[in-house]
């Protein structure tokens, strides 16, 4: 990452809007990034941070969540790192369509699929000591950069 910021937040839902605002403001420093891509990033980061907060809540951990946002010539990279108990991404069962009988009984299951659609790249590294989600959004070449 050539330029970037790091944010550490308590694992509390009240900080979600702050994370979204900071990450999108940082990404918007690249004038070539289109508004729709900023919206994609805003939602993807919110989903990753929500999952991180949930993982801490389940653990009862006081540990903070770290969000790193970096800009390079051709991409925006965001990492959301928690210290929760981790999970196996391979074990996530795809949820069925909402008009499928019984599907309404389950309100969740959208977060990771949304991140996969919204980001150009996503990597999930999870272990017993925590999970790191890396989101990448490609940016078009800027006229100002060489």
């Amino acid at each position, binding site marked *: 990452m050539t330029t970037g910021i790091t944010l550490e937040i308590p694992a509390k*839902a*009240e900080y*979600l*809007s702050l994370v*979204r605002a900071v990450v999108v403001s940082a990404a918007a420093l690249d004038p070539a990034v289109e508004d*729709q891509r900023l*919206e994609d990033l*805003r*939602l993807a980061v*919110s*989903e990753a941070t*929500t999952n991180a*907060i*949930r993982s801490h809540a389940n653990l009862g951990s006081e540990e903070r969540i770290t969000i790193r946002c970096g800009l390079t010539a051709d991409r925006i990279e965001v990492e959301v790192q928690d210290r929760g108990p981790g999970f196996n991404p391979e074990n996530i069962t795809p949820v069925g*369509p*909402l*008009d499928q009988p019984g599907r*309404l*009984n389950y*309100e*969740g299951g*959208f*977060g990771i*699929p*949304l991140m996969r*659609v919204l980001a150009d790249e996503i990597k999930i590294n999870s272990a017993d000591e925590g999970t790191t989600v890396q989101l990448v959004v490609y940016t078009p070449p800027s006229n100002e950069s060489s």
Partner: protein
Amino acid sequence: MIGITEQFRDNWVLLQINGEIDMATGPQLRQRIVQYVQEGHVNIIIDLTEVDFIDSTGLGVLIGGLKRTRSHDGDLQCIGLSESLKEMFKLTGLDAVLTEQDT
């Protein structure tokens, strides 16, 4: 915090939401929906015109509301979706179950 204003029309409750619906604010909306259904107001319209952000937690609240109202022979519908919200509803399949009515 989100702002919620209510209007009663015939047998419908119209909720106008202002703000962002996420893990922090979703429980507030969920609580209101539960309260309406308990009071017998099982037909709910949610106006999202002033909502500029909703994440999967917010979608979960809407799905929970739909399930709750339908289990009492009611319904829940969303109106006033921005283009980005329409796209999100489409991505998640919510457009198939939460009928949108253009105002």
